[in-house]
């Protein structure tokens, strides 16, 4: 009893306004993050809107079994992983190289001009990006096909209906959109490198490449590590906004990913009535794998380097 009284008088009452301020935010996270986490139970039920969450019958792991024994699971996991892996292989080093090149530039004005221009696409919405892509790749009047026709004498290619092109289109568009933004993160990290290190290196006779190799790159390593851990946490989830705009049944073979499947089957019900329980089960699989991968990469990063998220 003494504890309650102490807590009330010393901790709660003097901080009542702070607690009051915090209340709406707390409610927000309870309603939009923690209640949906509780809603995961419908993955183990046959959810019916008429019966409600609690009355719907339990079915155990049926939806997981259906998903993994069905024809789509492997294709979805493969497509998601490949988009992420290719995205990492190509999308991760390019902004770093770009930032290093910018950093070596002597003209401040030219540097700022390039940054201003390359930064812009980051602020455009995905439908605009998709619109630009369609303009570009259109078989009748898109620039890529005009070049193919006129310069190489080739027939027009229907890029957006050919599964073999989808990954390249998706990854190129993302690199194009994010190049300037990612480079700014690295450039910000570069400003924290002590300039006397460069001066000392120059006196010791280090050439340009050696200064990049032994000062600049090590200075970027913590930032690179953090960004890598964060992207590993998303290995089974890929930004679906652009995919939803560009894919169609003809390219599902390479374009359909876990996220788009959950949207299509769980909410939109585009092929068949929406199956909320199946959608929840597949989403849960995705969340759990994401949690495990981020923990694993974080502990690996902590072991091999000094940088980690926590």
């Amino acid at each position: 009893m003494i504890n309650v009284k102490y807590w009330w008088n010393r901790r709660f009452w003097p901080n009542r306004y702070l607690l009051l301020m915090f209340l709406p935010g707390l409610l927000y996270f309870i309603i939009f993050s923690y209640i949906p986490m509780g809603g995961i139970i419908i993955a183990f039920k046959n959810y019916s809107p008429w019966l409600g969450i609690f009355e719907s019958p339990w079915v155990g792991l049926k939806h997981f079994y259906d998903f993994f024994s069905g024809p789509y699971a492997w294709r979805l996991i493969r497509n998601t992983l490949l988009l992420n892996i290719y995205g990492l292989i190509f999308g991760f080093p390019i902004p770093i190289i770009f930032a290093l090149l910018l950093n070596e530039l002597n003209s401040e004005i030219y540097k700022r001009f390039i940054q201003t221009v390359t930064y812009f696409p980051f602020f455009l919405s995905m439908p605009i990006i998709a619109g630009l892509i369609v303009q570009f790749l259109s078989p009748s009047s898109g620039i890529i096909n005009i070049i193919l026709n006129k310069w190489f004498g080739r027939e027009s290619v229907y890029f957006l209906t050919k599964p073999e092109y989808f990954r390249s289109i998706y990854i190129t568009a993302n690199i194009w959109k994010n190049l300037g933004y990612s480079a700014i993160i690295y450039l910000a990290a570069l400003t924290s490198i002590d300039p006397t290190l460069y001066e000392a290196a120059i006196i010791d006779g280090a050439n340009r490449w050696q200064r990049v190799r032994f000062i600049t790159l090590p200075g970027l390593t913590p930032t690179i590590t953090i960004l890598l851990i964060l992207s590993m946490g998303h290995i089974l989830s890929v930004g679906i906004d652009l995919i939803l705009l560009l894919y169609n049944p003809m390219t599902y073979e390479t374009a359909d990913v876990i996220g788009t499947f959950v949207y299509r089957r769980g909410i939109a019900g585009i092929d068949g009535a929406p199956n909320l329980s199946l959608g929840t089960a597949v989403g849960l699989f995705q969340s759990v794998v994401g949690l495990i991968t981020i923990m694993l990469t974080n502990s690996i990063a902590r072991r091999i380097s000094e940088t980690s998220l926590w």
Partner: protein
Amino acid sequence: MRIKGESRIFDYFNIFLLGIITFIVVYPFIYTVSVSVSHPSAVTKGEVMLFPVGLNFSAYKKVIESPRIWRSYWNSTVYTSIGTVVRLFLLLITSYPLSRPNFPGRNLFTFLITFTMLFSGGLVPYFLVVRALGLLNTLWAMVIPGALSAWNIIIVRTFFQSTIHPSLIESAQIDGANDLQILFRIVFPLSTPIIAVMSLFIAIGIWNDYFTPLIFLTDDTKFPLTIILRDIVVMAIGKEFLGLREYGAIPIPSQSVQAATLIISMIPVLIAYPFIQRYFIKGIMIGAIKG
């Protein structure tokens, strides 16, 4: 950094390479502008590659005359302005208590918030919650879900911790100010940089959001610009790649009209861009200071 006597070959190569990269980034815009102001027949014949062929503004006239574009423009403006005010206020009042060492339950609450970055219930339960709250097809569907993000809270909290000195708050308390007065009279006026950055983050986020209206709005009169653009993209894919003549009962717009729509929808971002430039880089710097 350069020292005398080092080869300049790399410098010239670097200037050239960065020039090419910049051109690749700008080219889609130049091309789209050129398509939108070229003569439509020149576009279909494939004559437009870099500069406009035969100046013609009929595509813009068509877009400007479309009531659907204007209504969605208006909707986007309403969602963005109301959403930014609500979300910003919520962000500030949630982050501030977490920055105060004496706030009871601070560690627990910080954990509850950061945990949402690592794990979520997934799209379907989230959708069911929003539907159960009766938010579907209302303005609030664009404002309330997604209003707070753990990431932004951490950034703002770190900003408060590092810029507002505890002695300032203590002296205000001695003068008899309560926490609400401290927040509004002392903390907010000292936080204008982060407030500017965050409003821009939030406003751009809502203006560009296309997934939220896709799942939460079904009424044509409530659609924001992103959904109208999506329709145009989907129609263009249908026409150009799948050989459809019309979409529903609507004839599919020509490539010039598509291009003009894209350009018109980019204008607000282009106008805001100088501000964004100025504050965003600051914002990334603040975010880079590890919390």
